């Protein structure tokens, strides 16, 4: 036990004296969560648009008023003819132009059908899509209010209710995603690098010649990272909760247990990588391309798995991060208990055992 404490103390010296490690451990999680939370977002705010109102009646004025009162859009310019549309887009001043047809109010009253054209700048397809959705929603909303006042019958109303994330806040998917990426990075990459560093420096040989057992060396190297990963997970959750108002509906204890399970899973992957590589560079390359990219691209963190081609959907099953994201989203957003996520938990446990047994086997072969 005394040997173990001495070993762990040595590991902490390594970590605290290496600026790069310190940055990855403490700078990165906070920077990432802030970046994802504030900068990268699917929501739109204060988007500049232009209006071409050919009718200029009371109805169009009310609609324009409603749109400009919202926080989503700012009306930058009122156009007078269609020929101006392309010009404003080319200057890049506005993202969309609303065109009200001639005799708008008359069409609405007599034909019960008036047209608004939404022209968007689709050089950024995501924003264009979001803008047209927002405008459509606002127009429908306006019509519903109007119909209610007029007491019109036989009107079909669609009522959409969004469960778990009513405001469609993107931060709700980023917090679990970033937490997964950070835990993977800290646990797998940092441990594999720290173990291969000992190999590269020749100190691993000295440790193996000493009475300390290989398994003690591995546990001693891994232990500080379990500790630091738990701190990281806590920091991310606190930031998510207090800065981004991310709810934690389910049991905090279950969330903690599942996080520790995922940390151990990632650590065992890190040990596996270190048995496969002899230099820090190789370990870093394998971690980055073998782990980070799949975690970001195939775990469902950014791109939904259900819209991937079938082969990728199948591959995504072998990525531990996918299961962890499902688990923490279920706990945090839906308040799910263990009875709902036991299958995903079991998969993670299975993967962890597999990684550990393969590493032990590899490690023995190397010692031979």
């Amino acid at each position, binding site marked *: 036990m005394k040997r173990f404490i*001495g*070993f762990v103390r040595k590991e902490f010296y390594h970590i605290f004296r290496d600026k790069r490690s310190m940055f990855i451990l403490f700078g990165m999680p906070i920077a990432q969560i802030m970046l994802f939370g504030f900068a990268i977002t699917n929501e739109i705010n204060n988007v500049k648009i232009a209006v071409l109102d050919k009718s200029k009646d009371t109805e169009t004025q009310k609609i324009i008023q409603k749109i400009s009162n919202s926080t989503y859009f700012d009306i930058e310019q009122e156009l007078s003819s269609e020929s101006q549309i392309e010009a404003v887009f080319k200057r890049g001043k506005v993202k969309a132009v609303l065109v009200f047809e001639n005799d708008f109010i008359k069409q609405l009253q007599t034909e019960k059908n008036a047209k608004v054209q939404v022209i968007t700048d689709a050089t950024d397809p995501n924003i264009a899509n979001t803008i047209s959705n927002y405008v459509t929603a606002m127009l429908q909303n306006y019509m519903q209010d109007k119909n209610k006042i007029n007491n019109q019958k036989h009107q079909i109303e669609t009522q959409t209710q969004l469960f778990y994330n009513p405001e469609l806040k993107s931060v709700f998917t980023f917090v679990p995603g970033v937490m997964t990426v950070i835990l993977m990075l800290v646990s797998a990459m940092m441990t594999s690098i720290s173990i291969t560093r000992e190999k590269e*420096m020749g*100190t691993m*040989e*000295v440790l193996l*010649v*000493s*009475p300390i057992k290989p398994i003690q060396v591995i546990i001693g190297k891994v232990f500080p990272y379990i500790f630091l990963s738990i701190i990281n997970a806590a920091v991310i959750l606190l930031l998510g909760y207090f800065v981004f108002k991310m709810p934690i509906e389910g049991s905090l204890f279950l969330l903690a247990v599942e996080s520790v399970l995922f940390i151990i899973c990632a650590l065992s992957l890190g040990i596996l990588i270190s048995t496969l590589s002899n230099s820090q560079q190789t370990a870093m390359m394998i971690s980055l391309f073998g782990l980070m990219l799949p975690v970001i691209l195939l775990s469902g963190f950014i791109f939904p798995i259900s819209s991937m081609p079938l082969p990728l959907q199948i591959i995504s099953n072998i990525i531990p991060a996918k299961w962890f994201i499902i688990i923490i989203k279920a706990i945090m957003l839906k308040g799910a208990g263990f009875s709902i996520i036991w299958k995903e938990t079991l998969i993670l446990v299975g993967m962890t055992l597999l990684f550990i047994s393969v590493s032990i086997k590899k490690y023995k072969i190397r010692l*031979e």
Partner: protein
Amino acid sequence: MVFETLQVSIIIMNKEKIIQVEKLTKTFGNFTAVKGITFDVYKGEIFGFLGANGAGKTTAMKMLIGISNPTSGKAIVAGLDVATQSDLVKMNIGYMSQKFSLYDDLTVNENITFFGGIYGLSRKQIKEKSIQLVEELEMQNVANNLVGALPLGWKQKLSFSVALLHEPKIVFLDEPTGGVDPITRRQFWEMIYTQAHKGTTIFVTTHYMDEAEYCDRVSIMVDGVIEALDTPKNLKQQFKVNSMNDVFLKLARNIE
């Protein structure tokens, strides 16, 4: 004449075998790296273990220090079988690898504390040892500096002292003086001599043939086999040459 014979017999009686190697063999797949070597090392001697790169000396040494299992044959180190008692063997030996084997990002004192700790020394022992060691090496001024900032020669000496921290019966040195300047090498060998006089057995591999001259006995390995084993003086006589360098070249050439 009678007295002389008596003296010789006493010396032989004193020659306690600390390493006994018998038909030690290591095979990797189809390749046999070490082909049934047999030799003894006596207590307190400086034993030079020589051989060209790829001759199998590193593999043989790994078996003796208990990090590689022999395919067949037997090796007894400090009275313990390396195949079955490697844990106990490790308690009784010190090791210094050719790669510099301390932690650069730890201070001199922290390195001593760490290695003392993994060899199971008590806190009090570590404290005493580190004061004594730093004094002997005249490193009082740098005891709290990071090892990475020290000159290579100092690191080598520190590394050797750290390998001796738990007072092992045998120290294995794997090309300890690689890349060190001649003066430091000379000083390093003085440390080795001092330690051998205290009764510690030194098992050393080296590429420098002048260093082979400093050893009590030298073995030369070629292609997994020990081709020669004797005192440097006897080897030079046997091959009718003036230096160990020529002995080595002659052996290597004969094989080719």
